[in-house]
């Protein structure tokens, strides 16, 4: 049972991470992966994303969510990679990978960490758009997403 959390400024290769994560888990029948990407949509175009973070607090918080997910869903391994700094459209921001014997716990483990990450990990998004850059507001739906785990 391994919990790995990496905060890094550098770009990462989503697929390479999946393969690396999976390689040493002969007992894992199921791997669920979530990749969050910088997106630009026609109604809200952006050029880049700047992600500010609280380094020591982020590391501790994410390790805690990952450990909680491991215990709760009986995961074989979990890995979280989260970037900070400036990123371009299409680049990955975050990746969560959860391995388990069974598919539902792998899905739930990755989903659980993402829900908490969105609301409780100390990261702040600044979008760089055509009319300048602005801080993103916290979304109500992220708070409600978290509640499903306390039911």
């Amino acid at each position: 049972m391994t919990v790995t959390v990496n905060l890094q400024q550098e770009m990462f290769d989503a697929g390479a991470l999946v393969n690396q994560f999976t390689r040493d888990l002969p007992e894992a029948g199921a791997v669920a992966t979530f990749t969050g990407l910088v997106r630009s949509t026609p109604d809200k175009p952006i050029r880049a994303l700047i992600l500010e973070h609280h380094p020591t607090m982020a590391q501790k918080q994410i390790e805690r969510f990952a450990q909680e997910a491991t215990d709760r869903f009986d995961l074989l391994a979990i890995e979280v990679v989260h970037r900070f700094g400036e990123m371009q459209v299409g680049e990955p921001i975050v990746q969560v990978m959860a391995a388990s014997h069974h598919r539902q716990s792998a899905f739930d483990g990755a989903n659980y960490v993402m829900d908490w990450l969105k609301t409780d990990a100390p990261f702040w998004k600044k979008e760089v758009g055509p009319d300048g850059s602005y801080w993103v507001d916290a979304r109500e739906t992220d708070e409600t997403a978290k509640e499903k785990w306390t039911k």
Partner: protein
Amino acid sequence: MIIRYFAWIRERLNRDQQELALPESVQTVADALDHLRATDEDFAAILPPETVFRVALDDELVELDTPLGNAKELSIFPPMTGG
């Protein structure tokens, strides 16, 4: 105590941290914020009591009534928008 600021709060205050000697009477997070408002005009203008922000003591999210205890750092920041 070190006070650290993040995101738009850091930008608007135009500083990312400051060292602060707090008087004995300052016991809780709320006391520290009140002290900052009383002694720092910028802080008072940018972080009035009705602002939505969060606080952490030594990397742990806390409430306003949490005692400062032996904490070395107080972090002040907007609600998180990560992931």
